[in-house]
């Protein structure tokens, strides 16, 4: 394919043939407003906000779906264009509830921002408004179709990135609505609750179930001992909510912010990420040595777990029985820590800060009560934590770094990298290699499993076995990989799967505005945080060693099985109706 040269607002730009006028304009430094557009995922020319005038064309053209052509002369700022944009936006707003002041997306809403930048001061159109009920059926995601502008980004992400297609547009014209088949509640269909739809929603039509109220309530209750754990991926993302550069590492400020909010103890999910590696690493070795089910597949990502339960229920035996680090933390906090600190677990309230909406579902699973109580009481996404901090007037970027508390506060570099795709695999191999070979991996940086490629493969020689491993992120890639495994086209010993693009750093609970560029910056920060830590292998975590010595005994032991391992539910894809 050759190149074409066109003129946009008087600027000449040369782009590869096939490039859209919108992309060409971006390259030329000309900003065209967009709403439904989502690079490479949703380029359908649906909202018409990006219309431009092309000399010689009969009508205005949607720049996101118009290919740039040789000699094309484009104007993005004529009277006709401005009037059309304004009319389009006013029409969209004319069927939008005016709830901006109380909307969760106030301040991060793309529709609001466009109305502001286009200087919309009145809506000339008045007519019928859509009325649909709010879907609060799941513990993770709220759907408010009245706020939906039918951009279809969520539909596109669910289908193309995740390969799930839980939702689509039904009806036509004014009666169109985005949702599951049969207009069933989301909880009744095969949705993984990954929250990628929430991340791309331009408005408040999709949001996380808010848990801030109940956490505030627990914090205000003098009888409650409220402990908090922070997932690895929070420390490289929270800064964005407070105007810091994407990829800023804010671990110490995160701890300080949580302390300022009033948590009694600030602990780290990294502690139980290390614990996960010891349990899962030993589980892998046991399966390799005793002819157990292979490939063994990781079980940290609750969106992925729900996906396999719906779509590949015949392969549940391949999942590691290890609970996720979040749930291991809850179980250990309400047993080991409660005992050590002399606190009645009935009075303990465990909060997780997670980059994930599916974690809210995970903590509600009936089997996640092995302490005798609900192991994790509430899950806050990165966004919800940011909202609580703002409400309290705390800006972490201005705080002095603080340290996690003992005894669940130490995490190694191996735990930090759980946040990035390939990280759990790398962390596991650092430990498994050393357990088997009695020496350190030649290099602790396993570059083959890092990076943004959808499916990655590597081999590690462990004595006389060559262990073949694979890593996938996004559920569409997970599906591809599972199909290869099922058909016998590929065979592995160990597979890591994360539901979200880039891994947890790109999770559905992360700051609005998460895109590929930001994901890469957070991944970069994740590996930097790993390199900077004195301990980089899970089995060197002194607090984890102490936990085994004082409480658990040994990996895969009786107590571990009781507290740290779980089972899964075949769900199938048929709706509950």
């Amino acid at each position, binding site marked *: 394919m050759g190149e074409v040269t066109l003129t946009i607002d008087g600027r000449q730009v040369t782009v590869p043939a096939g490039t859209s006028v919108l992309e060409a304009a971006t390259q030329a430094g000309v900003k065209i407003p967009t709403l439904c557009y989502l690079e490479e995922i949703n380029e359908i020319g649906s909202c018409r906000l990006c219309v431009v005038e092309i000399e010689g064309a009969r009508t205005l053209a949607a720049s996101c779906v118009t290919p740039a052509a040789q000699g094309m002369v484009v104007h993005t700022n004529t009277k006709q264009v401005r009037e059309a944009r304004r009319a389009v936006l006013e029409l969209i707003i004319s069927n939008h509830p005016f709830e901006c002041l109380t909307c969760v997306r106030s301040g991060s809403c793309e529709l609001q921002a466009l109305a502001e930048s286009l200087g919309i001061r009145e809506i000339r159109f008045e007519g019928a408004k859509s009325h649909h009920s709010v879907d609060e059926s799941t513990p993770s995601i709220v759907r408010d179709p009245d706020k939906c502008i039918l951009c279809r980004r969520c539909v596109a992400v669910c289908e193309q990135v995740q390969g799930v297609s839980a939702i689509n547009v039904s009806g036509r014209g004014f009666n169109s609505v985005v949702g599951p*088949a049969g207009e069933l509640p989301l909880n009744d269909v095969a949705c993984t609750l990954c929250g990628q739809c929430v991340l791309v929603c331009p408005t408040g039509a999709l949001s996380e179930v808010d848990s801030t109220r109940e956490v505030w309530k627990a914090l205000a209750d003098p009888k409650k001992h409220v402990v908090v754990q922070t997932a690895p991926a929070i420390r490289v993302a929270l800064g964005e909510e407070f105007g810091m550069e994407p990829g800023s590492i804010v671990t110490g400020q995160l701890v300080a912010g949580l302390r300022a909010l009033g948590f009694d103890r600030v602990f780290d999910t990294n502690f139980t990420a290390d614990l996960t590696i010891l349990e899962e690493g030993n589980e892998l070795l046991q399966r390799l040595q005793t002819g157990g089910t292979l490939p063994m597949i990781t079980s940290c990502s609750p969106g992925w777990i729900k996906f396999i339960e719906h779509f590949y229920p015949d392969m549940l035996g391949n999942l590691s029985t290890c609970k996720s680090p979040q749930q291991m933390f809850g179980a250990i906090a309400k047993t080991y820590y409660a005992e050590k600190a002399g606190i009645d677990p009935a009075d303990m309230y465990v909060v997780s800060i997670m980059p994930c909406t599916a974690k809210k579902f995970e903590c509600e699973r009936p089997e996640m009560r092995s302490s005798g109580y609900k192991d994790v009481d509430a899950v806050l996404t990165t966004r919800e934590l940011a909202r609580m901090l703002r409400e309290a007037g705390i800006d972490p970027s201005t705080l002095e770094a603080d340290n996690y508390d003992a005894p669940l506060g130490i995490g190694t570099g191996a735990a930090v990298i759980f946040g990035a795709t390939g990280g759990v695999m790398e962390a596991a191999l650092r430990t498994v290699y050393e357990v088997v070979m009695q020496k350190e991996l030649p290099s602790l940086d396993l570059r083959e499993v890092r990076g943004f490629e959808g499916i990655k493969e590597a081999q590690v020689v462990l004595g006389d076995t060559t262990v073949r491993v694979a890593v996938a992120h996004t559920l569409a890639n997970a599906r591809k990989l599972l199909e290869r495994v099922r058909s016998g086209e590929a065979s592995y010993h160990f597979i890591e799967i994360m539901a979200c693009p880039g891994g947890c750093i790109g999770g559905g609970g992360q700051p609005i505005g998460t895109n590929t560029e930001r994901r890469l910056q957070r991944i970069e920060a994740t590996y930097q945080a790993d390199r900077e830590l004195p301990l980089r292998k899970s089995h060197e975590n002194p607090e984890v060693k102490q936990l085994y010595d004082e409480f658990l005994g040994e990996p895969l032991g009786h107590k571990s099985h009781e507290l740290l391992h779980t089972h899964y539910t075949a769900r199938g894809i048929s709706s*509950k109706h």
Partner: protein
Amino acid sequence: MGCCETSSAGDITDITPEQWAKADEIIARYKGQRGVLIPCLHEIQQVVGYLPLEVQERVAAGLDIPVADVYSVITFYALFTTKPKGKHKVGVCLGTACYVRGGEKILDKVEHALGIKAGDTTPDRLFSIQVMRCIGACGLGPVMTVDDDIYARIKPERVPEVLKKYS
């Protein structure tokens, strides 16, 4: 809830095992081909009469298409219906000619007489109402049909007696 039990023929009261078998035959014929969703749904609707969620899920599984996409197609085209039709199908034309000659008053009367809205079916499954957009009998407007019978220049007050003939 298990994955297969819910969409088995067992808990469907109004789709007969024969209808399910025919639907499965149709699905099997289209299996593995691309771009066949609409003809497949059309044939099944001719057999079953309508396309409830259970049928949509069967089609989705058979053609390896997400059920959300099947539902999207069904609700887009007026040809498809997710509700069962009554034994007698009452049609009221709201095409331009019938409309200006009072078609809407006829529809109001039919809806009122049967206690249901256009597109719906009476609980006893005896009648369903559908709005038609011109049946090519403009000179006879307003037109109302029941099954294959055509009632020309119908007046609202005659609607009840027409319906009574089919009760």
